[in-house]
């Protein structure tokens, strides 16, 4: 157990034994070496299972909406998760006073797919060390450069340190250039409209409509999703271009001003579909147009919840856009 894990564990035990939390949401080692599992500790004794490392790929804020409002929830949060929590609190999904955030400055999530690419699918164990990741396989042991294994979203992360936590464990880490997200969007926009569509078409074509992206996203908590609505039916239900493209466009658009760029959707996708390039665009626009970044606090309303007489106006005579 690492020192960091020990400190999280101690905090979790304290919260549970002092009755400061009904549940501590963190990670435990799963039965497959590449993916630690979200864990829900309600008993100080059971916390020994707790793990924390770069392979913890889920956004734990996702589980917040499963609990009734009066539950006192303690949760391990990294930068993106703390932003998701803020966004959820803003949307009235849980009262902040019933939350206890154990912040962890994040070194970036190790993308298990990149490990698989490097060593093959058979992995016996993984050790996440400071700058390297040691992977044991039946073929032998591999030492990989951690930086090269980072998930795409983490490479562009603008908030590695958690925000508004009740306690922070670990040393703060240096934040990255906040323009990395914009750069990606601008590069994609420069590709030309045909190329952009072709890329979107190919990505959405692989969709199997398992909705893992939806279920992995903390902000997708609607009681009924638009794709499940039957009267009227908004999109085709099958794996048809209309259905798949419609799903990806609207799913992303529903996240406008809400998405915290955590990349959980992309990490959950079984078909390796790139999705964050869509939400990155929306996030960039929200910043450029309204200087808004989702989840920085739990008070500022999202741009779509408000409007201004001075908003950009393309409603002009003769249908001239822009």
């Amino acid at each position: 157990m690492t020192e960091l894990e020990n400190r999280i564990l101690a905090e979790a035990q304290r919260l549970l034994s002092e009755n400061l939390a009904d549940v501590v949401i963190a990670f435990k080692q799963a039965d497959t070496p590449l993916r630690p599992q979200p864990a829900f500790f309600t008993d100080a004794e059971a916390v020994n299972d707790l793990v924390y490392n770069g392979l913890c790929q889920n956004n734990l804020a996702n589980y917040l909406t499963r609990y009734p409002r009066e539950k006192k929830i303690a949760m391990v949060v990294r930068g993106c998760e703390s932003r998701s929590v803020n966004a959820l609190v803003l949307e009235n999904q849980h009262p902040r006073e019933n939350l206890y955030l154990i912040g962890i400055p994040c070194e970036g999530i190790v993308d298990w797919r990149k490990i698989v690419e490097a060593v093959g699918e058979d992995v016996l164990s993984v050790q996440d060390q400071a700058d390297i990741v040691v992977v044991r396989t039946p073929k032998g042991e591999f030492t990989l450069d951690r930086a090269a294994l980072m998930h795409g979203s983490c490479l562009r992360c603008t908030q590695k340190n958690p925000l508004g936590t009740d306690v922070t464990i670990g040393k703060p880490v240096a934040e990255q250039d906040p323009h990395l997200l914009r750069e990606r969007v601008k590069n994609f926009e420069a590709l030309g409209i045909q190329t952009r569509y072709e890329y979107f078409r190919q990505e959405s074509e692989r969709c199997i409509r398992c909705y893992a992206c939806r279920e992995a996203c903390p902000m997708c908590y609607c009681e009924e999703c638009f794709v499940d609505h039957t009267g009227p039916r908004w999109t085709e239900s099958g794996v048809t271009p209309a259905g798949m493209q419609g799903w990806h466009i609207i799913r992303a658009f529903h996240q406008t001003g809400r998405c915290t760029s955590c990349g959980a959707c992309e990490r959950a996708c079984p078909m390796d579909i790139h999705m964050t390039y869509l939400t990155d665009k929306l996030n960039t626009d929200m910043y450029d147009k309204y200087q808004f970044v989702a989840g920085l606090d739990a008070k500022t309303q999202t741009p779509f919840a408000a409007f201004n007489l001075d908003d950009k106006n393309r409603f002009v005579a003769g249908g001239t856009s822009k």
Partner: protein
Amino acid sequence: MDTAKKIVLFQCQWCLYAPEDQDWVDHHLPENVHLTKVPCTGRLDPLFILNAVQGGADGVMISGCVPEKCHFKEGNLSARRQMDEFSDFLNYVGYDEDRICFTWLDLQDRGRIQKDVAEFSKKVEALGKSHSLNTRSVLPQGGAHD
């Protein structure tokens, strides 16, 4: 008929002040313009636009009331934010934003809708047929309706 570019017009039912303008929209729109009336531009869901685009619309036109003259006070203002972003977003995934046109009509804009529709039609004509996001086969003649 096959070559005429398909335009879907979403019209706020309050935006045309002159009865003859509404009459023109209701009964004399060019054949390639399909009308969908909405109670307010604020009622427009991105899905409306997307369904039009997926159904093969070569252009989408939205006509609404000018700021501060919305029948529902502020519907048009929140629509402006959303629709602006949505057309930016569609452009990002590959649907030319020039194919989406917004027009705000005021009390003195008598007869302007005709001009706007004509101008937009010309522009869409020049842009040609849109292929991106056109993924939903159109209704066969006499086919089942929703």
